[in-house]
């Protein structure tokens, strides 16, 4: 919640036409600037932000430090590209603008977007740094775009000269799939703001698609602990279920499916789902190997389909009445019934494996981290579904006579 006046120096030189940061370097900067302004204002409403451009015909101050976000965003729209970046003049003008800030109690900070080559030498940068330090101005440097030899060292020299108690930072943003703003969000430029700023930054990270964030699943536990917990738990569940499915397929050959039951039960118990717990209890009562595996399958399906379906599946477990809405569930029930009645050797093994595959493919599509449009995933699902398709039709024919038990 530190009271701060910030001047943001934007690089609008010719180098910013490049599209290596989508959509173009200049627009990437504009996005980052709007995020920074939002974060600053949110962490303390009295914080002010001003903008100046370093390229073009010369350094031009677009707005002096102000709390009005609308004014700042309006200026961002009018940016045009041209000329060369004059970093020394830019920083000095920024310092002057900060000196004349209205609220003298605000700390002074400059944020520089250094995208094009720095034509000044180290000595000049160090002198500028010293002057900033003397006037207690902190600086955040965002190094992106052009990476000619010497630029990182010059910026490091500037940082070393200014840095007082770690209040200044230098962030390198390499080109890549992550947008400029996303990389900045997780950098000290944002996180040095304190509680309010980091909350905003985390929210922005969650909102940004494929954002680089420090939290799993892009959800900040501070903002949404239940969601973060649920995601984490369901991820573990899926993993456990997949292991169980793989194990079952392996164990069926040796008929040792019982050991996995308690382990998967314990993992299931972490899920805060009462119906599933009751399902575990009811299935444990039977203690029949066939029933256990059947109920395991049913429980797994229930969890992926939702609790309402699990209720019906629990009720129907013993009667094995297939619900029409859910063909896969019916298939599972069918298979388990077949196991009861038929010789549990080759055919049951195969059917179980097939069942597992279709059920595994259904899991794959419902996994939070898996994108169903990913070609590799599509191929996998197709290969899995290709096999049981023919046997599915066979089983559906068998369904009507087996329906009532």
């Amino acid at each position, binding site marked *: 919640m530190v009271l701060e006046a910030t001047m943001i120096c934007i690089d609008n030189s010719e180098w910013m036409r490049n599209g290596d940061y989508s959509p173009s370097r200049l627009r990437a900067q504009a996005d980052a600037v709007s995020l920074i302004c939002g974060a600053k204002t949110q962490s303390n409403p009295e914080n002010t932000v001003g903008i100046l451009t370093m390229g073009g015909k010369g350094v031009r101050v677009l707005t002096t430090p102000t709390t009005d976000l609308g004014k700042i965003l309006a200026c961002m729209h009018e940016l045009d590209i041209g000329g060369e970046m004059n970093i020394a003049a830019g920083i000095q003008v920024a310092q002057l603008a900060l*000196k004349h800030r209205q609220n*003298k109690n605000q700390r002074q900070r400059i944020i520089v977007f250094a995208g094009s080559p720095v034509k000044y030498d180290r000595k000049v940068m160090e002198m500028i740094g*010293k002057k900033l*330090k*003397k*006037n*207690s101005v902190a600086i955040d440097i965002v190094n992106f775009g052009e990476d000619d030899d010497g630029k990182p060292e010059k910026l490091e020299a500037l940082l070393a000269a200014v840095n*007082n108690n770690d209040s200044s930072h230098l962030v390198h943003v390499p080109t890549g799939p992550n947008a400029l703003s996303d990389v900045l969000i997780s950098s000290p430029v944002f996180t040095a703001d304190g509680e309010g700023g980091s909350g905003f930054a985390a929210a922005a990270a969650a909102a940004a698609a494929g954002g680089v964030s420090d939290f799993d699943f892009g959800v900040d536990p501070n903002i949404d602990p239940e969601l973060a917990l649920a995601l984490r738990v369901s991820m573990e569940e899926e993993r456990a279920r997949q292991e169980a499915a793989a194990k079952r397929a392996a164990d069926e050959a040796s008929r040792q499916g019982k050991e996995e039951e308690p382990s998967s039960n314990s993992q299931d118990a972490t899920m805060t789902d009462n119906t599933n717990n009751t399902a575990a209890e009811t299935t444990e009562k039977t203690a029949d190997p066939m029933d256990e595996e059947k109920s395991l399958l049913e429980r797994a399906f229930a969890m992926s389909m939702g609790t309402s379906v699990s209720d019906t599946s629990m009720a129907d477990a013993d009667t094995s009445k297939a619900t029409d809405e859910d063909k896969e569930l019916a298939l599972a029930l069918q298979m388990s019934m077949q196991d009861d009645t038929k010789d549990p050797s080759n055919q049951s093994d195969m059917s179980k494996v097939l069942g597992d595959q279709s059920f595994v493919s259904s899991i794959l599509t419902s996994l939070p981290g898996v994108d169903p449009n990913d070609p590799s995933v599509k191929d996998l699902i197709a290969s899995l579904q290709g096999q049981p398709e023919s046997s599915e039709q066979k089983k559906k024919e068998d369904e009507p006579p087996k329906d009532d038990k």
Partner: protein
Amino acid sequence: MSAESTTAINRSIVDLLDFIDWSGVECLNHNTAHSLPNAIKQGYREDEGLYLESDADEQLLIYLPFTQVVKLHSIVVKGPEEEGPKTVKLFSNREHMGFSNVNDFPPSDTAVLTPDNLKGKPVVLKFVKFQNVRSLTIFIEDNQSGSEVTKVDKIALFGTTVETTDMKGLKKIEDNH
């Protein structure tokens, strides 16, 4: 009407430490490990090991607001022989000065410190210039030996207050009515 409140009370010159408004105190170009309270606060300033040190270069700019209006009589600046300050400029009632505008206006007074001063001998100021001081800016321009950093052990301000402070006297008058 008793004349108690209107007679010229001979105020003795006191240490103005108690009248410094700590919330507004600022110091530019100081090393954060060796900061301003080391030189000014009671106890800190007597300690030889605690001193105020400059950072990027040898200049220091100290801003001290007061809780009430004071008259400044003299100051004491103690420091080591070599890195102690030499030229000290004082500005009264100028808020938020920076190094760039120290030379824009003439100082209220300038003191060139001798080694005697650095040992504790007070520097008497032009009293007439400091009759109505709300805030004081101390600009240490250079040091004795011209070294990169300036070190200050103690800064003490002496003077008198301006406002009537004798509330007890006031009450007595009212009781007589």
